[in-house]
């Protein structure tokens, strides 16, 4: 402090001598040093007072007293500054905690792309914030059957992510060889209804592809309809099935529907982070998704999913408003 006292006084003296901008600039640089060394505002006033009284010894004592008044005034500013610094540090700690949690979630959800005869599979799942409220799940049953689930917790961030881990454990508890899509949704609905807060709603799309008859069977719990592309007619069709959101009531019946996949056909299951694309001008027409997928229909399923994500992210200036998940299953 003595050192700073001397430097401060010298700086002040130089300024008083020349009254120039240069020394004001030095003062500004010097103040940064103060902040770095966590010198409180009241200490700065005290330094100033001592410097003034040293430079002008003839000054009346009242001038020193006015500085004491200012020191009193500065105590709370000093406290506010330190509180601010401590809150920033806390924020950094929270941020690090979130990153760890996001890693845990990533490991937990860890979707792997399955190998199923005659089917090309691709997906993208990106979180809007550190943690995702979307869930994507694949399971293969001896290369003969493929199950795919896409779920979306209404809401995002940590609460949604916690909810998602429950869905994951629900899915792990089901023996899917035995179950058809409408049954799977019924079971998951019961788990969610029992264990999730009333304000949490989850939509889910569940599909199964049978390699032998090339049928894609699906059911939906209030989820966005999937898109079905028919290569022969070069047209899109929405694959929707009736069913209530998960967790609303205990016993729910889910409609089950079927579509036959021919070579070049594909099914795209999405969350509303894909279909409800928001730009500065408002929501985009969902026809854009069909258009984008059509442009790359001859590429691999993964390339299609990547392309869709990249294009839609670009339209939003790379700011995701909601978690984004798309799964594409394409008949070879």
């Amino acid at each position, binding site marked *: 402090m003595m050192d700073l006292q001397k430097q401060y006084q010298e700086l002040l003296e130089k300024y008083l001598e020349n009254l120039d901008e240069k020394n004001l600039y030095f003062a500004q640089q010097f103040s940064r040093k103060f902040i770095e060394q966590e010198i409180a505002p*009241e*200490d700065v006033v*005290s330094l100033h*007072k001592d410097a003034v009284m040293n430079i002008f010894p003839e000054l009346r004592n009242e001038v020193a007293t006015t500085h*004491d008044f200012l*020191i*009193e005034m500065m*105590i*709370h500013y000093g*406290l*506010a500054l*330190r*509180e601010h610094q*401590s*809150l920033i540090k*806390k924020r950094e700690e929270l941020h690090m905690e979130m990153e760890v949690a996001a890693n845990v979630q990533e490991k937990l959800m860890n979707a792997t792309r399955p190998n199923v005869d005659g089917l090309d599979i691709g997906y993208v799942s990106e979180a809007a914030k550190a943690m995702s409220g979307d869930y994507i799940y694949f399971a293969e049953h001896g290369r003969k059957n493929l199950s795919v689930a896409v779920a979306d917790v209404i809401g995002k961030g940590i609460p949604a992510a916690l909810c998602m881990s429950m869905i994951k454990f629900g899915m792990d508890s089901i023996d899917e060889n035995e179950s058809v899509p409408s049954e799977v949704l019924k079971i998951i609905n019961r788990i969610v209804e029992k264990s999730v807060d009333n304000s949490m709603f989850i939509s889910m799309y569940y599909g199964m592809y049978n390699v032998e008859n090339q049928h894609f069977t699906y059911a939906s719990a209030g989820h966005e309809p999937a898109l079905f592309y028919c290569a022969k007619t070069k047209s899109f069709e929405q694959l929707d099935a009736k069913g209530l959101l998960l967790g609303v009531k205990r016993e729910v019946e889910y409609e089950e529907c079927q579509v036959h996949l021919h070579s070049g056909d594909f099914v795209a299951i999405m969350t509303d982070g894909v279909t409800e694309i928001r730009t500065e001008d408002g929501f985009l027409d969902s026809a854009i998704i069909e258009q984008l997928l059509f442009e790359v229909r001859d590429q691999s399923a993964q390339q299609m999913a990547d392309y869709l994500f990249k294009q839609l992210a670009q339209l939003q200036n790379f700011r995701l408003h909601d978690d984004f998940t798309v799964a594409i299953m394409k008949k070879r």
Partner: protein
Amino acid sequence: MNERSSVEIYTEWDVVAARQLGRDEAKSIGFGTVDQARITTAISELARNIYLYAGTGKIEIRRLHDGVKKGMMIISSDNGPGIPDVRKVMEDGFTTSGGLGAGMPGVQRLVDEFKIETEVGVGTTITAIKWLR
């Protein structure tokens, strides 16, 4: 001068009396202007909290001699409602955002040692120490 002295808090003017006592003590112990202001602000916050939340209570000042170290102890005690969630009160941003002044974290920052004892329905005692450097 007495080693111990105190001010009973009944009205807002007693907050001023507690400040005055604290400042006089701090000055005579040898604290500089800035530390005097810090000690006084801490006392002010503690006394105000008594006045606002407990109604009545006491601010006591003690001089400390620990070998060559000299310092001062501030004890704020009341038989008020107590603090149900101390952790929350000690959290940054909890009281300041509500416009309640520096709050307990602020008082803690102004002194070197700080202890809070509280029981709901019984009262609160806060002990703060500032050492002369």
